[in-house]
């Protein structure tokens, strides 16, 4: 039996645990999570969400003092079993082939040391694992015959209004791929906490794994890992952690350690594990740990279209429409972008009743108009000056505080404004009055933070090799958005899950996990 420690219980940790446990190898896996346990698919929790609009995850967000106004971490990630998948939207587009060749095609950032075709089979497997609905016929990017487990979500009547406007502008569109189990779903619109686990969460995935592999999988919650323990420069022997339930420090040995703590905490853990062999932090001899931090600049616009005879409203509860028209090679040098759209009520029915709006006024309001909203995310170009480092003092989890320095490339700022203007033109074509249109554009935040332990062929250019092994080590890995050399425009979770599948396959082929004594 060989032991593996996974640091972090989000989508990467859960996917790795599942994939490793189903190999023929005899693994004993321990997953460490800094935050507490949480119940998946609990009816009472769901009821409170629906009736009281409770912010279910408020106790799992960053400390107020770790708020970074220019790169908001608070609320964009969660410290709890299942990590940020507890409140994610479930949007799962693949990266496109050109996204792996950013430097070669644009001169910005760096290329991935692996390409789209190498990733394609792992994308297909991850789409099964996450239970994704999507359009298997859409070959942009190429699917090579792979089928989504569930057919695409049908467009809503409201989508059609937006699609007609897109057609006028010759803007392509398609079905959003989204992590929703269509066979299990019983209600839509409350996906932020699904009562039946139809939306993928690592929380539920791990709960199932704990049932399935009772003797093989241990999950330690409220157990933040504070240091990776090394025997010499190449070999990890385990981790130190805090037991927050007892307030005591502890340690655990293992044959391999995989850091899945997200972009911020993974980099911080390598930095805070500095020792005599790695004086600037593990994997940081070339100074890349914590650097190149990027996220997704976001943008949106909404307006009111007069008249709504069909009383269109947000009946689906999540988005079914995506346009990747600007997420294409032609736009890569400016910053690619995808966007979606929806039609909704200005105010919910219950709010209107509670505000004592009469039935006649509610009916009149419904047919008087509709709000059409467009929103998207774009690729950010990296800079080595954008970085995460260790702050002074500790968080409530006993982890070092976070320091972040980040700016947005001027090309990204300019392109973002162009994209917002495109939204305005689409809304006008869709019938929104000009004076009703409002726009918004924001800098990246911690939600899709990436690239602080980037993947590279050589240790000069990055932190981990194409197998996600930290350069210069033989049993220490990072599997998080941190390893992305660039972030593309697409949401990162599917790509991360695919990388986790790929890493599990690689580790499964290593026998033994630890090279024989003397070889390191």
């Amino acid at each position, binding site marked *: 039996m060989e032991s593996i420690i996974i640091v972090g219980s989000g989508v990467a940790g859960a996917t790795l645990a599942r994939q490793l446990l189903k190999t023929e190898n005899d693994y004993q896996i321990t997953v460490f999570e800094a935050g507490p346990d949480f119940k998946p698919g609990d*009816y*009472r929790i769901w*009821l409170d969400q*629906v*009736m*009281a*609009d409770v912010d279910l995850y408020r106790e799992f967000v960053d400390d107020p003092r770790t708020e970074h106004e220019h790169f908001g971490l608070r609320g964009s990630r969660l410290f709890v079993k299942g990590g940020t998948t507890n409140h994610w939207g479930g949007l799962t587009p693949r990266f496109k082939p050109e996204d792996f060749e950013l430097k070669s095609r644009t001169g910005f950032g760096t290329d991935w040391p692996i390409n789209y075709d190498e990733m394609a089979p792992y994308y297909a497997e991850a789409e099964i694992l996450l239970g994704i*609905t999507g359009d298997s016929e859409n070959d942009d990017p190429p699917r090579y015959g792979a089928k989504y487990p*569930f*057919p695409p*979500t*049908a*467009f*809503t*009547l*409201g*989508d*059609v209004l937006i*699609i007609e406007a897109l057609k006028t502008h010759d803007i392509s569109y398609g079905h959003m791929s989204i992590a*929703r189990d*269509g*066979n*299990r*779903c*019983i*209600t*839509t*619109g*409350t996906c932020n906490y699904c009562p039946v686990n*139809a939306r993928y969460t690592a929380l539920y995935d791990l709960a199932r794994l704990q049932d399935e592999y009772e003797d093989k999988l241990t999950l330690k919650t409220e157990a933040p890992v504070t240091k990776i323990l090394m025997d010499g420069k190449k070999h990890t022997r385990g981790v130190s952690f805090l037991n927050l339930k007892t307030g005591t420090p502890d340690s655990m040995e293992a044959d391999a350690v995989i850091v899945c703590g997200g972009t911020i905490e993974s980099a911080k853990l390598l930095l805070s594990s500095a020792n005599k062999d790695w004086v600037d932090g593990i994997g940081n001899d070339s100074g890349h740990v914590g650097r190149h931090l990027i996220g997704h600049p976001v943008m949106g616009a909404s307006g009111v279209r007069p008249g709504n005879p*069909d*009383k*269109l*409203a*947000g*009946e*689906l*509860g999540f988005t079914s429409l995506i346009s990747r028209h600007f997420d294409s090679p032609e736009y890569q040098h400016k910053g690619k972008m995808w966007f979606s759209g929806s039609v909704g009520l200005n105010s*919910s*029915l*219950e709010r209107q*009743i*509670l*505000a*004592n*709006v*009469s*039935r*006649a*006024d*509610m*009916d009149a309001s*419904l047919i008087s108009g509709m709000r059409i909203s467009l929103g998207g995310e774009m690729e950010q170009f990296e800079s080595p000056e954008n970085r995460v480092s260790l702050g002074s003092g500790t968080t409530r989890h006993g982890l070092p505080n976070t320091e972040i320095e980040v700016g947005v490339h001027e090309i990204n700022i300019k392109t973002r404004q162009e994209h917002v203007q495109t939204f305005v033109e689409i809304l006008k074509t869709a019938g929104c009055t000009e004076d009703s249109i409002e726009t918004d554009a924001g800098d990246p935040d911690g939600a899709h933070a990436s690239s602080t332990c980037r993947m590279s062929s050589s240790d000069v250019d990055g932190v981990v090799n194409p197998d996600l092994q930290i350069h210069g080590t033989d049993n220490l890995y990072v599997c998080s958005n941190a390893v992305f050399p660039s972030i593309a425009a697409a949401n990162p979770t599917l790509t991360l899950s695919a990388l986790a599948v790929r890493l599990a396959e690689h580790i499964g082929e290593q026998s033994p996990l630890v090279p024989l004594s003397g070889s390191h």
Partner: protein
Amino acid sequence: MTELKIDRRQLIRMGLSSSVLATLPLGCVMLGNDETDELLQFVSNSRSPVDAKRTGSLPQEDFEKLVGLCQYVNRAWELDADMGLYFNRLRADLDFKTSEEPSYLTEYKHAVELISRMVGTTSSVEQAWASLLFADSDVENFPATKLGRARRLVFSELITHQIPVSGAFKSFGLWNYSGYFGGSFTAPESYRKGAV
């Protein structure tokens, strides 16, 4: 108790809609305006239910008083929902809210006390509910009072439950609503689908 007589003009000024006013008999709505009055009695500033560890089942007679709100809203807003079916589901859901922590049992009991009192002192059930929900908007500035808490933690939550779960939203011409158990999004009738 000091009583304040509020006529229709005052009700309109406070924001009551014409449809609600139409349900009221000629006369007035009585509300206490004395801060020592039970309605404005301080209970708690907490956003969580008081006595959250006190679990148990809400007696059926109390449940029936509470669901008077749903019947009133169903009538006044012409929601046309099948209340019999809905009440079975609501009964089960309120049991979830009172049998597990944080329990709403004490908040519901406080609300029932207010309902009993208002129904006993006003000339109609409609009038009682209009007063409990909307009259004396200053109460909104005192959310820690018995009435303020009942509005926020009980009445507001019940209406927010009623619109999706009873299917009341359908009377507005919508097919689906956040929280409605209408089946999977893959079902043909689950929401209005558009052809492209």
